[in-house]
């Protein structure tokens, strides 16, 4: 598995865990009676906090991922050649992490999948409101649509890396 594929998998897992954490926290609060289901301020506040948490968590996960990548490459090199200097580590990372035209093309194509998912989320939210659901449903549908879209984007990226563009 290449660096880009590993990075995509890590991002997808992080996104899935963050979405699960949001659902457990937000819907847990409503079920426990700590927040009213139709309280838009609660939903808007929770989503904003989770967006902030997502950014911070993603940055931390990426840093940890790169450290682990460097350590694993170092161990692998030591096993194979008995030595691993900084120059070879830098050279390896430069070529592995280079984002070239194919990565950009894959990123563009898979982001279309994410937009479609987010659009479906918005559409589903509107339809649910049309059928009498609370306004908070729209907010949740859009947020969940975006989150699932990010996961679908990752799946599409992996598919493009495996099957070709």
């Amino acid at each position: 598995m290449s660096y880009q594929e590993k990075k995509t998998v890590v991002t997808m897992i992080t996104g899935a865990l963050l979405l699960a954490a949001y659902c457990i926290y937000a819907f847990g609060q409503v079920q426990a009676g700590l927040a009213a289901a139709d309280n838009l301020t609660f939903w808007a506040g929770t989503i904003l906090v989770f967006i902030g948490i997502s950014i911070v968590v993603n940055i931390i996960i990426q840093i940890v991922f790169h450290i682990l990548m460097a350590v694993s490459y170092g161990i692998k090199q030591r096993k194979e050649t008995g030595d691993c200097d900084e120059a070879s580590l830098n050279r390896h990372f430069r070529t592995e992490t280079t984002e070239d035209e194919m990565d950009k093309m894959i990123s563009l194509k898979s982001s279309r999948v994410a937009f479609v998912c987010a659009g479906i989320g918005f559409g589903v939210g509107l339809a649910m409101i049309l059928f009498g659901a609370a306004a908070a449903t729209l907010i949740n549908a859009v947020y969940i649509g975006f989150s699932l879209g990010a996961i679908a984007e990752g799946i599409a990226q992996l598919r493009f890396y495996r099957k070709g563009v």
Partner: protein
Amino acid sequence: MTKKNAASTTYTGEKLEISNNIRTLRFFANEMTQQQLAEKAGASRQTIIAVEAGKYSPSLELAFKIADAFGVPITDVFEYRRADEPVEQVEQEK
């Protein structure tokens, strides 16, 4: 005849198959690794693997860089033919 990996693409409604000789050229360049070729062409190893396997048709710029890495004209690296055209006919036209 060596088997070439080909990527399909559509141009002006006509289906074209772009094949490459990268594996052969790497062999004749002292078994150059994909990593070395990637460094020379300024692309990632993943991209070189995809181009070589015919899973990705590179841009003109990258195609020239790959050819330059081997020191050969671009036509020695990449070839194209219509999808319905037999390989033998293309060989004869050369």
